[in-house]
């Protein structure tokens, strides 16, 4: 059974990625589509970031007693100032470890 679920998920995921590359996709997209699609990275990645910072194990929003929140805020500041991927990930993980060790 797990094999079938896995193969199903693999096939669906592949076709989701392929759909607009296929010959069935419209050859020419309308002019406004470029503006619309320019928001894809920001909107979709934000939708992944925010719950993984704010939502806890019991599916509830955690504002207090949540070391991920200050660590993520620090990472946003570092990303804003340095534009460095390494500095952003490094500072966020370091902050989370320090906070977990010191306080939480």
């Amino acid at each position: 059974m797990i094999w079938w679920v896995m193969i199903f998920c693999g096939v669906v995921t592949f076709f989701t990625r392929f759909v607009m590359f296929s010959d069935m996709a419209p050859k020419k997209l309308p002019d406004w589509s470029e503006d619309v699609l320019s928001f894809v990275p920001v909107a979709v990645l934000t939708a992944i970031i925010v719950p993984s910072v704010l939502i806890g194990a019991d599916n509830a929003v955690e504002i207090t007693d949540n070391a991920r929140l200050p660590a993520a805020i620090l990472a946003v500041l570092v990303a804003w100032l340095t534009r460095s991927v390494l500095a952003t990930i490094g500072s966020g993980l370091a902050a989370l470890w320090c906070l977990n060790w010191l306080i939480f």
Partner: protein
Amino acid sequence: MSPTPSHPSRQQEFWSGVRQELPLQLGVAPFGLVFGVLGLAAGLTPLQTILMSSIVFGGASQVVLVQLWGSVPGPVVGASVSMINLRHALYSASVAPYLRALPLRWRLPLAYLLTDEAYAVTINRLRNETPGPFQHYHLLGTGTLLWVCWQITTITGVVFGATIPPEWSLEFAIPLTFIAVVVPILKRRADFIACGTAAVISVIGQPLPWNSWIILAGMGGIMAGWLSLRIMAGRGDA
């Protein structure tokens, strides 16, 4: 299309993709380890866990798949994973204008490699740098590096997973990776509106079935960004 000397060569495009993708592996590698551990913990065999990383090849959705496995019926697991990965259709639409003219033998593997992290890096090259006849090699570079890293770290997680302490919170590396990608591309006022809208919907949408909040928040953010862009353009202060 004959390449002029000013265009980057195939090798230059490929390796610039690899180079630009490399720092993101600091976030991808821990996540691969975590997935390896979670797969075994959910009762999958080492082989099933390892092969899932090449059959599905979608980090967040693989984690959800193994977490749901055993607690809900198989079709619900499939629906949930499909819903999470629906966002890739948006990536596909976004990259398609640059790649649609390629032969199928290119479009098939490039679609397979179109993950969050490869898309995030390559879309910057496609939009912001001079178009070149070999620009698709850039996605081949970002995607291949990511694929190799994801397979190696999944295997490492499966083999050494039991020795990784959970208090290291390695899964936190993924939101950090995306923070590193999103913050530098927030430029227009409408980008901030798209970001804020997606953030709010992603939190209040949590109770929705099959993790559909992720695609709803993505679509909501895109619409809010686009509408505000149009309104501001109409007022002349975009």
